[in-house]
């Protein structure tokens, strides 16, 4: 599957295209198929996202999992500061990245 990701313009937060808008959680991301570039152009033009790009991912029981470790780190947060990630209460959250 293909996911569309980028950063929120004013805050820089990592965001994922949900089909309706943008979410901080990769679990909300949807397969954009071959529409990613078109959506990215429209959304970036409207300043709803900054520096968007399309990535490969696989669909797992937990939801979409980016294919590349860099995007998994983006999706979770720094593995060395789990308290600052989106799953601060899960001590094993870093395993999802690796």
């Amino acid at each position, binding site marked *: 599957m293909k996911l569309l990701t980028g950063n929120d313009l004013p805050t820089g937060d990592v965001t994922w295209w949900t089909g309706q808008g943008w979410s901080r959680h990769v679990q909300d991301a949807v397969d954009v198929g071959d529409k990613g570039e078109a959506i990215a152009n429209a959304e970036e033009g409207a300043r709803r996202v*900054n520096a968007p790009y399309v990535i490969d991912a696989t669909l797992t029981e937990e939801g979409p999992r980016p*294919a590349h470790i860099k995007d998994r780190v983006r999706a979770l947060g720094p*593995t060395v500061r789990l308290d600052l990630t989106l799953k601060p209460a899960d001590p094993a959250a870093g395993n999802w990245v690796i």
Partner: protein
Amino acid sequence: MYKYDQYDQAIVDARVAEFRDQVTRRLAGQITEDQFKPLRLMNGLYLQLHAYMLRVAVPYGTLDGRQMRMLGHIARKYDRGYGHFTTRQNIQYNWIKLSDAPDILADLATVEMHAIQTSGNCIRNISSDQYAGAAADEVADPRPWAELLRQWSTFHPEFSYLPRKFKIAVIAADEDRAAMRLHDIGIQLVERDGKLGGRIFVGGGMGRTPMVAPEIKDFIGAEDLLSYVEACLRVYNRYGRRDNIYKARIKILIHELGADEYRRQVEEEFKLVKALGIDPPQAEFDRIAAYFAPPAFEAGASDAIDRSDPDFAVWLDQNVKAHKRPGYAIVNISLKPAGGIPGDASAEQIDLMADLAGRYSFDELRVTHAQNIVLPHVRKADLHTIWQALHGAGLAEANLDLITDIIACPGLDYCSLANARSIPVAQKIADRFADPARQRDLGELKLKISGCINACGHHHAGHIGILGVDKKGTENYQLLLGGSGAEDASLGKITGPGFDEDGIVDAVERVTDRYVALREEGERFLDTYRRVGIDPFKEAIYG
């Protein structure tokens, strides 16, 4: 400490106002990201993996308590309670909002700080010896020269769009504590026949094509130093490659031209530049130098230290260095606690270090390229009190220059350029070698980790270096041996095939075990490596 004059302050204030307007226009959609990106980078604002990252300049690594407290304030108010001190003697914040960036720069400007020239193809923040003004072995304080270069390079119209970024270091001692020969220009102030001048090294650097800078001028008088540096830049600006980012650094130009031909061109250019009269009048240099006059050291300060507390004594032997004044010492505060993140400090720790500087070090601090902090002028009588305060804040790790005093870039946990994570590897190595006695037995051993070929973690210059690479989508770590960023500068050699995260920790241990087996009396790891070569270590690693 240098103090801004009206021109310095006006320049910085104007830049804040300009950037505020640029951010407003970007958020309003009046300029695109392509248009905005070079503008934000000129103000040190990057877009990294999780958020915007702001890199704040610490000129030649020197700070006063007021500035340090401001760094803590920014961490607390605008970031997530911490900052990351870098191998360029700067500080980075990882969680910055674009909408906050103008306010942060405005706050910095109130304490004579900014984020200018921390990105882009310009002359970057000048770096220097963290012991400047305190070291017994310096021929002069290098900071007035670094400050002169800062003023000269700030918004220099000719050098704002160089072929590539440009890094300059100034030192004034034979012991190189600033990795001077791994800079685009390294200046070592020296005395010849009672006259101050500089040895000029050009074309060093790490990254994709690491090189140790060759000496281009064995002595240039202090009165000609700035003109000579300008001549070095001019030749680079004219002939440095702009067609290929990977061949654009000055080291490539000098490698292709040859040091002799580059030197010949610089000498010709120097004659033209000298006639322009850019070297400052002595009175102007003296004005700058006056800001770096020695503080009011206490005459007759005692050299006695009570070593009865064994933990304090260990810290004393490892982290405290000789000062040029009797009764005083240089304190190194390690930002490498066991299990910690190299270079990170919380807002509270930053505040504490500022307070200690105010009370015990004439309000001065230094940031080191090894990602530690220095209190440069401490009475020996105050050392135990300082150690107790540091101990209570998790800042008293007695590991300076030992195997756990690891330089590590932010790596893939934060950096969009990285291919692999650096910090977890540093933490696992620190954990493996956690026994303080074992660390001290291994002695001076500089271990440096980069998460990509750009080498922000100085892996080429590590006695043991580690480079993280992307191997078919997984993290892989190459091991290098034999590098040095000191006066005996050398580049590490790759041992062979790489390892996964746990494998690289095992490989490091096999290397240190072999060192212990091979070392002769008084030999550091690097000495043994240079004596026996890489083969015994490869055998230990790969069998």
